[in-house]
């Protein structure tokens, strides 16, 4: 299997007054294409910080990150917001605990949002229908987010993360806001996405149920992989 993410000695230090918090502390990690990586650990251990660094949502304090062999973060190099934006749209789709759907847009419009900003994303009506069918929200196409259940909203958010055809899906507690039945649906969906599209998934979760689907499980403790 080909390595898609390579992390070397990645560190993120937050300074809170005189106190230094090593949220991520010298992490080394290789992730292969098609992996499902479950990131687990106690609250405050640094899971979100780690996946945000991997997902290029944040600059590390030090350390290196390679995506598909391409060096992204190097020692002492801080990337500009627009450079990060470009890398993000090239590699990643994101799903968060909160769904962040735009309330004035329909399901379809919400899903198509990335295509406004990424010229490479051209989603045909057919592709869109396929994605929505896959996620079981086709019937909701023209509904507003306020008319959906939590599970449906999260599926819309996932669909939105998928239209850019990302190589890697970063999901930070995707079922954190959902009951067990909805969580089950999302879990099945993630497995399906991984199988059908070979998409690499990195997910943070507190749910042992969901963590089980990972072919790799990483436990974080005080910013380190334990």
């Amino acid at each position, binding site marked *: 299997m080909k390595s898609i993410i390579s992390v070397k000695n990645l560190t993120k230090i937050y300074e809170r007054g005189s106190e230094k918090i090593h949220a991520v502390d010298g992490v080394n990690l290789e992730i292969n294409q098609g992996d499902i990586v479950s990131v687990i650990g106690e609250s405050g251990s640094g899971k*979100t910080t780690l996946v*945000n660094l991997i997902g290029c*949502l*944040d600059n590390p304090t030090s350390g290196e990150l390679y995506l598909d062999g391409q060096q992204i973060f190097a020692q002492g190099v801080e990337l500009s*917001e*627009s450079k990060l*934006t*470009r890398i*993000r*749209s090239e590699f990643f789709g*994101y799903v*968060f*605990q*909160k769904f*962040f759907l*735009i*309330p*004035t*847009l329909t399901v379809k*419009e919400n899903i*198509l*949002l*990335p*295509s*406004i*900003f*990424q010229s490479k*994303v051209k989603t045909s009506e057919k592709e869109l229908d396929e994605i929505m069918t896959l996620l079981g929200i086709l019937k909701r196409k023209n509904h507003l987010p306020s008319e959906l259940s939590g599970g449906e909203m999260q599926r819309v958010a996932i669909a*939105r993360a998928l239209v*850019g055809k990302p190589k890697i899906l970063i999901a*930070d507690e995707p079922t954190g806001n959902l009951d067990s039945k909805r969580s089950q649906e999302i879990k099945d969906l993630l497995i399906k996405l991984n199988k059908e599209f070979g998409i690499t998934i990195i997910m943070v979760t507190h749910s042992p149920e969901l963590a089980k689907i990972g072919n790799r499980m990483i436990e974080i403790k005080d910013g380190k992989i334990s």
Partner: protein
Amino acid sequence: MNVFQLSYKNLFRRKVRTLFTIIGITLSTWVLVTLLGFNKGYENSLNDNIEGMGFQIVLTAKGCPYEAATLMLKGGTGLRYMPEEMVADVASRKEVAQATAQLMHVEFDPNKGENGGSVVYLGIDPTTFAEMKPYLEFTQGKWFEQQTGNVVVLGYEAAELEQREVGDLMLLSGSEAEYEVVGVLKRTGTQDDGMIFLPLQTAQKAFNKQNELTMLGIRLNKDVNQTAFEEELYKLPDVQVVSMAQVKNTIMGLVSSAKVIVLSIAFIAFIIAMFGVLNTVLMSVFERYQEIGILKSMGAMPKDIFKMILIETTILCSAGGLLGIGFSYLFSGISEVAIRYFLPFAPNGKLILIDSQIALFAFVSITLIGIVGGMYPAWRASKVRPLDSIRSE
């Protein structure tokens, strides 16, 4: 889907707030357009009124120049008189192309209007007067031809007020004799509308002003030096030489200070509108911090977000601008009444003249002002990082 649609839909999220912002912009634009229209209309009407007089120079008996100015435009009281011989001498000078002598008489008529009003009579020489004011047209009848006789021509409004038509007889207030109406003028929008015209000599006799005149209207030959000729006239005793250009300047001078105030108000209204926009848009940016962060995680560049916010502002401003311009057109009649009420002197004719130039200027400036007001919020929004939204839970 494109950025424009995204911006447009955002405006519907807080309908009431959007509405109030648009109302604010509408009001500012309305004020601006109306005031600019007034600036233009006032000057135009004044020009028309003065040109409508048909003279370049007016000779009156000595008095206050402001009084002379209003007297000519409105018909005033406190009339003074010049001897006929002197007037005849001026009229016969070689520089004069045409001259027409007039005797104005103002009579208070207790039956006019609710509280009575003044009736303005103008004794004129039918030949020269008609020649100097060729644009006067009749709805009925024509000018009297004789220099004497009990005949009158009524201005449009005078005819309406007196309820007279050609062939009717009427009494002049303060006199017993009956006069025959021989003509009624069309509306001109000038002071002539309210006048009652009668032959000069008849007027002199009726109002007991034998050999006296109130005014001589003069039009000069083409290449006469007007200033030099005016200098000549200044040598005459007890007369006042008023050039129409001067009258206009005097009045424009009087209104120019009012204009400054008016334009300052318009300017302040605009600044207020700008801060209104800034405030609204900034609030909506703060409310959408997370959402903007998410848009960024989906590949939106700072410039995309900047554009999105500026489009929202532009939509707000152009909608308000268009409404404001519409209102100014629609309610220019009402604004005109209000302005007339406050103004010490207003010429006849349209006081508020809103043309496409003014409308365009107002639209462009309100939109620009809005864009300026939207800059800061747009800049703030463009600086939002995806992380800000994910962390701000």
